[in-house]
């Protein structure tokens, strides 16, 4: 005791301070424990509807036609149990004429803030197209093209129900009777807001 008093040179005040320092962490910890809410697992909502806006480059290329371009659009999304996604959007594209790209997709996402997702998409192009004739297609092809596409959204985030996705990638295929056409999709930015 005397040695401690001698060392600090401050007497009882120093001792009180040291005691407070030693006691404080324990007291704080106990207080925190006392005030911590009881964790209750709340089930994710069965349906969470969102509206979203997207910007993209989408093309459909085959030996007999080219259509698509750069553009953007709007869509609606239903997220089921914070896991499964059903969504549909329509975009206006400009480069190879004027075209519309209607995309209907079903997918699955990771739960949490970082929420990458994968979709199976039916990508339909309407409108203008550049066309080419070949031996199997002696007349210009008409009508829309419907491609089945696998879409990856590796940089997708969910913050308080709002979704942001960067650089989505999609690759699909569609029959050209005979032959095959390919659908290429690059989503630049997509922002979804719950409602």
């Amino acid at each position, binding site marked *: 005791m005397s040695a401690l008093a001698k060392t600090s040179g401050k007497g009882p005040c120093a001792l009180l301070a040291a005691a407070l320092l030693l006691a404080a962490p324990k007291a704080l910890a106990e207080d925190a424990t006392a005030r911590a809410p009881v964790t209750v697992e709340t089930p994710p909502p069965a349906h969470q509807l969102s509206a979203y806006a997207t910007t993209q480059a989408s093309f459909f290329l085959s030996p007999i036609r080219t259509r698509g371009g750069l553009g953007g659009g709007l869509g609606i999304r239903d997220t089921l149990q914070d896991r499964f996604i059903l969504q549909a959007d329509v975009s206006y594209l400009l480069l190879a004429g004027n075209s519309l790209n209607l995309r209907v997709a079903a997918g699955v996402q990771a739960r949490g803030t970082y929420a990458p997702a994968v979709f199976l998409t039916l990508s339909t192009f309407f409108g203008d197209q550049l066309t080419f004739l070949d031996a199997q297609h002696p*007349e210009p092809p008409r009508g829309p093209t419907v491609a089945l596409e696998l879409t990856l959204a590796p940089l997708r985030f969910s913050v308080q129900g709002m979704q942001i996705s960067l650089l989505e990638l999609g690759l699909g295929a569609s029959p050209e009777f005979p032959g095959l056409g390919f659908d290429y999709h690059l989503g630049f930015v997509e922002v979804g807001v719950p409602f």
Partner: protein
Amino acid sequence: MSASLPRTSALLGACVLLGAAACARQPLLENPNLDRLGALAQEVDGAALMATVNGLVQDHGADTPLACTDEQSRLYTPLCHLTHDKARARIEAQLAGRGLTVTHQELVARTGLPLSNVIAELPGASHPEEIVLVGAHYDAFYAGADDNSTGVAAVLELARVLSQHRFDRTLRFVAFDQEELGGIGSDAYVDETRGEHLVNAVIYDCIGYYDTRPGSQTSLPGLPTPSAADFIAGISNDTSSQRLAELNALNDALQLAHLVTLTTPRSSTFPLGSALLRSDHSPFWFSGQEALFLTDTANFRNPHYHQDTDTVDTLDPARYTQVVRLSAAGLAYWAGGPL
């Protein structure tokens, strides 16, 4: 019940027949006389064609270029090597020599330069008011062998061949002035002839340069273009897509040229399509008339494009001749003949 069965079967049968009839594809070509069209195509003489190209190239070489300013020279040097007068004189002489009526459309263009389109006609036998046109621009930078002596020589050779026959519709041969300054001659022509019944127009610009090496062809992004520059491109807009399909069908039947087709929507008035508007077909498209553009794709394959090296020795006479033969068959088909 039993009585209704035959009636139901008959109805079903009728529906199937109606469905089949609705789905049945109409033939692309209406009663083509392929033997006669093929024989006519073979009347195109490759040697005569190349002789005319040589003559036109000499004309351009011997001609005095149009005046140009220092600024034009700095902006685009070929502008100071643009000629047309001597080539026009040859065109007039050759067309008149075929017994065709030759007229001129002369005016002062918006460039401030006098403009002269040369027009010759072979009147139709039964529908002279219906016109099938073949045209090419005759002004050229430097010697202008591919661009566009090949096109002009094709028009003149077709005038020689077709003027020996009769057709239901009128065939019109046109040499346009001042294409290189922005399609000015063809623009003026379309303005003046608005209201005529034009069945189809075939426009040539650069049709004699070919290269069979893989990688010799470049293209616009997204177009399924062959790697080798050994084809002729046939380009239409939506309005004239049926004519392009007909030309393609004729080519398939007669096996004349390696034709690669492209139909562009909205007369190519969109960002990717502007490169498809760079010749005398575009005024026809913009006025709602049918026109096909035949081209070897010019600078997408030809390193001599708008250079002083655009000379006759760079051309491929055999492939070039086949393209003109295909055109002869197409023009004769659309003109309703030969009778």
